[in-house]
């Protein structure tokens, strides 16, 4: 697809080549980090005290059963060979079997990932919809009450344990006022839609089951607010400072002097230039979502990776914990790659060196 351009314009070819080199470099980096992630999870699994054979077979296992299991799993081999076995398993999609659920971990992760994705995406939308306008307001009314309010909320948002926020909101909006449903994905009497994407909200829309859709949306509101609150606060703070910086620049003053209306000024000129720092923050937020999901999902009994991780950790289901950790490392690396690429695409000044 790129060749016709090449024939016409050597300048463009060079640009395109630079972009491709950058892409390849980034991709190589991600592959390296992912490999490192597998190495790290493998070594954490090594320090786990106790005999994995015993935890897999139960305390009543006979001696020869244990020996056989160890031989089968390659536990008698040197560590480096064991890593080889582990890594080969990963490549073929084998993360082992969960001690708690008794199912292949890959299957568990596949089942629970859409739930987390649905929650995380909704929370990001919430954070953007509330955080960015709040930041704009704060910048426009600098040092007046909208600004002070946004700054106060941002400060509190950064220090509040989100599980306590969740407990309070549940008590108020569910238990006291009855406006929103309690923990869980759907009301018990509803039948979940056939899994297409695995995201209950989307699947119910696809199945045109609006009763389930409305209920799933109502269940989504509180966890999404809890997961997104801190991000909204951070986003507001960043939007504010990025906008204030841009508003202080000469071209904005020129535009103002020429009589450009302030709404045009904000949306046409300033916000566009403030977009990059906001994008950077957004990228950072996405990485933190998985950590937040652990706490949020645990409180809201949300069928996602986070709650799965908590259950695995508290029942000492190490293969499952390692599976989640690996997935989390992988997801974060890919998110970072995506943000980098978006960033490079958005800002012509970024060099691909």
């Amino acid at each position, binding site marked *: 697809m790129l060749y016709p351009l090449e024939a016409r314009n050597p300048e463009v070819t060079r640009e395109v080549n630079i972009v491709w080199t950058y892409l390849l470099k980034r991709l190589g980096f991600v592959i390296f980090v992912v490999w490192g992630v597998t190495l790290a999870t493998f070594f954490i699994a090594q320090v786990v005290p106790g005999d994995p054979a015993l935890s897999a077979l139960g305390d009543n296992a006979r001696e020869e059963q244990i020996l056989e299991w160890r031989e089968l799993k390659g536990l008698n081999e040197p560590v480096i060979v064991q890593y080889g076995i582990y890594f080969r398993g990963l490549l073929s999609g084998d993360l082992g079997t969960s001690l708690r659920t008794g199912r292949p971990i890959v299957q568990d992760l596949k089942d629970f990932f859409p739930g987390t994705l649905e929650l995380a995406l909704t929370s990001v939308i919430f954070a953007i919809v509330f955080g960015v306008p709040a930041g704009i307001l704060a910048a426009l009314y600098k040092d007046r009450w909208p600004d002070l309010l946004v700054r106060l909320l941002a400060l509190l948002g950064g220090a509040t344990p989100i599980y306590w926020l969740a407990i309070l909101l549940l008590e108020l909006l569910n238990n006291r006022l009855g406006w929103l449903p309690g923990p869980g994905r759907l009301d018990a009497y509803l039948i979940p839609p056939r899994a297409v994407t695995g995201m209950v909200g989307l699947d119910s829309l696809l199945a045109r089951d609006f009763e389930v859709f409305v209920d799933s949306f109502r269940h989504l509101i509180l966890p999404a607010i809890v997961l997104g609150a801190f991000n909204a606060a951070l986003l507001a703070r960043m939007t504010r400072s990025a906008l204030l910086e841009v508003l202080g620049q000469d071209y904005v003053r020129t535009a103002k002097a020429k009589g450009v209306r302030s709404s045009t000024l904000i949306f046409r000129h300033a916000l566009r230039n403030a977009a990059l720092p906001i994008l950077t923050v957004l990228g950072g937020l996405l990485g933190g979502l998985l950590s937040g999901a652990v706490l949020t999902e645990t409180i809201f009994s949300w069928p996602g990776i986070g709650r799965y991780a908590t259950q695995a950790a*508290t029942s000492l289901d190490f293969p499952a914990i390692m599976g989640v950790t690996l997935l989390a490392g992988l997801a974060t690396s890919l998110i970072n790659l995506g943000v980098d690429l978006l960033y490079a695409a958005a800002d012509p000044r970024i060099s691909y060196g």
Partner: protein
Amino acid sequence: MVETPKLEQKVRSEQARAVARLLRNPGLVTGAILILMTLLVALLAPFISRDPLFQDLSVRVQAPSSVHILGTDQLGRDVWARVAHGARISLWVGFAVTALSLGVGTFIGLMAGSFGKGIDNALMRLTDIFLAFPSLILAMAIAAALGSSVGNTILAVAVVSWPSYARLVRAQVLVLREREFVEAATALGSSRLRIALQHLLPNVLTPILIQASFDIGQAILIAAGLSFIGVGVQPPTPEWGAMVSETRNFISSAPWASSAPALAILFTVLGFNLLGDGLRDVLDPRARK
């Protein structure tokens, strides 16, 4: 010889001005007051409160009163006593995690910045791998693997906290090592290790200090999160996160029991965040407008 007193005077007035600037920053002062209060409560906990583990089932879920100023929990334990003793654990975790991760991260950052490309690459790629994990999930895995105790919680949180120092210090070193005083030291025959420790380290202390202030708060928040989930410090130890978890089902009948430790987390973390913000405003000349 005549010059010296003048110079000393100048230095002293510089210091006085810096202190004055610190005191003029309202956020910093508020943060420092919050931290000092928590510190005082932690130090004096045994003298200003009862036994945090003592159960008196006859006074279960009592509202705050003159006897129990923050009320009692579902086992009739004094909430104020538990919050006050919890300050000891949370502050200890916060300081220990930060000391550990700051030490390791600064050392790695210094080495990466000082000893050529090979070492730099190896160390920074190692840092990248640790940065690839969501902090709470990696800490959870480590805490679960090691077993739950205060010491293991500290270790788990430190493992996820050191990379930010490594990056920060390396970035500073890369800039600093082009400066003339480093060139001079090199010309005088100082070894790289000596330059790193004697010349570079003192110059990166300010950004490290700012970062550390934020990190103590973050470490407290992550550690409390671990305990809330159940893989950190275990009940009945009065740890703030564990306390919120233990009392969450009594939010309707005894909102004070879970809110008191949660607010303690909030104000302590807020204190360290405000302190960090303030220090950055005052000490970092680039951020100062």
